[in-house]
């Protein structure tokens, strides 16, 4: 019956507990006020405390829980992160079209096999759609190309 400890779950619970502690510490830095007239610090400290309590209970619950499979997927996480960062960085500096192309091409690398033709076609299609709908249709404050 002895099963190994599920460290992944335990660490997640501990992280949540740490977050709760942080909320308490940071929250108590704001004015606590009194029960009668609560300051902005009261509710956060309350929430943080419950979060810590739940996290402790959670550690007990997940101690021997079933292990997760394929938890760490670096390729999709990294490519999607790269795509988002590129989109955010390029959007206001280079315009919607370069940002869209960069996003689509980067996130297309997330899956093997990479399909270059489909990726380029999707990038072009979405650029056109994006410019028509968002730049001309909704008038977001970004143009297709910023020069």
């Amino acid at each position, binding site marked *: 019956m002895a099963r190994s400890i599920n460290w992944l779950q335990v660490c997640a619970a501990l992280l949540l507990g740490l977050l709760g502690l942080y909320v308490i510490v940071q929250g108590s830095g704001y004015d606590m006020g009194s*029960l009668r007239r609560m300051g902005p610090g009261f509710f956060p400290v309350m929430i943080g405390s419950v*979060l810590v309590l739940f996290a402790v209970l959670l550690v007990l619950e997940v101690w021997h829980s079933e292990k997760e499979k394929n938890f760490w997927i670096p390729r999709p996480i990294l490519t999607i992160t790269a795509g988002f960062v590129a989109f955010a960085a390029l959007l206001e500096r280079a315009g919607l079209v370069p940002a869209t192309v960069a996003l689509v091409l980067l996130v297309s690398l997330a899956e093997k096999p990479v399909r270059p033709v489909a990726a380029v076609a999707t990038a072009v299609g979405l650029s056109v759609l994006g410019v028509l709908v968002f730049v001309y249709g909704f008038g977001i404050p970004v143009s297709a190309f910023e020069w």
Partner: protein
Amino acid sequence: MDILHNLALGAEVAFSWQGLLFCFVGVLVGTFVGVLPGIGPLAAISLALPMTYYLSPPIALIMLAGIFYGAQYGGSIAAILLNLPGTASAAVTCIDGNQMTKQGRAGVALFTAAISSFCGGIVAIFMVLGFTPMIASFAMDFGSMDYFSIMLLGLVAASTLSVGSPLKGMTMVMLGIALGLVGTDDTSGTERFTFGALALSDGISLVALAMGLFGVGEILANLGQEKRAPLKASGLTFKSMLPKRHEWQGLWKTILRGSGIGAFVGALPGSGPAIAAFMAYASEKKLARNPEKFGQGELRGVASPESANNAAVQAAFIPTLSLGIPGDAVMAVLLGAMILHGISPGPELVTSNPEMFWGLVVSFGVGNIMLLVLNLPLIRVWVRMLSIPYHVLYPAMLFFICIGVFSVRSSVFDIYTALFFGVIGYFLIRLRFPAAPLLLGFILGPMMEVHFRRALLLSRGDYWTFFDSIPSTVFLILTALFLVLPLWAAFRKRTARTANLGD
């Protein structure tokens, strides 16, 4: 006849060209995302949210609601044909629906699913019509303590009724409330947890949070999975969809029961269409004379959950519109949409924005009829949708997430927020933490704080104020019940397990 007058007012909104057009767009988008496994109504509604800024509030709500119930129709298609629930609430439909496909009766299953969804929707609309104004007028006298207690009830119910660990659900609620703390405190004007960042002084963007957790997170989880089986093209003709007479016999009773259960469960705070579908299926199986047929392609096993989930979706509008308290995460986003449109949800909504409430209700009827038309003769179009390759779909979804998040408040910062919560959302999915209670906590948290502080201010710091009013006391007792029940269930499971010496 007051109600006729009100319905006429609603019809004016719902039958305006804008009302009809955007209702159609909503149900169309809803069916689309429902059909496609991997995008649920939540992601779609958050996506559409920024686009509704250009519409008047009632029209915007009509469209967003259309996505929600449209997805229930669409969700059954993937469930029946591919054994993949297009939406979480269609998971139960997979059991018998996919068996029927294997037996070559896919058409009959699809037809029954559409008809059942339609009936469920209609039954629930009458519930919404009857109960919302009633509950709203009852809630007019609600004080802050009542609001606090009912929100607490909603949060506890949502986290304990969800699939999986109730403790994980409640932890997610707390995490959501904690995230909701970020930004300027309404009462005192103090900036909290903003790390000095100007972009956070208005709080974390709801759209960025929802899109991250439910859009990016789901995509990451799908990309990390093994490949699914491709769809085998099946010869679906309209004729093959019509069930034979003996199959129809007594089915209407199943549909009515499913609708009733769905409408009732859906109206409770905290329970969504998925739970309604599951409960309807379970009770139908218990009532059946031949329960062993369930799971082997029983038509009632399709009719029951499908009528229940659509009824639940419509009925979920009851607490949202009458009390301003969302029952599940999708409703929470719809509530967020109302707030963004400058409408304060609460019991006054029905009387102060009658065109909104009645317009929405009439549009439910219109939308359900549109969906019936979309799902019966045009079923083959939707089946073809299932063959859109994922390598085209997910870059497109990510693009819409990026641009959608940005367009809410023209903030590049929010794109990073969506990415951040996307990665968190992925880890939550893999660690089996439910993300929906988080979102519910995020939206209800700030409202709860306001009511909590106001209640204690009025009672001069006396905690017993939460037991001073009858509604508040009832809600708190129910909350305690919801907390104790899972503990009791876990205890029983453990004793049963030791008795069996298994696992």
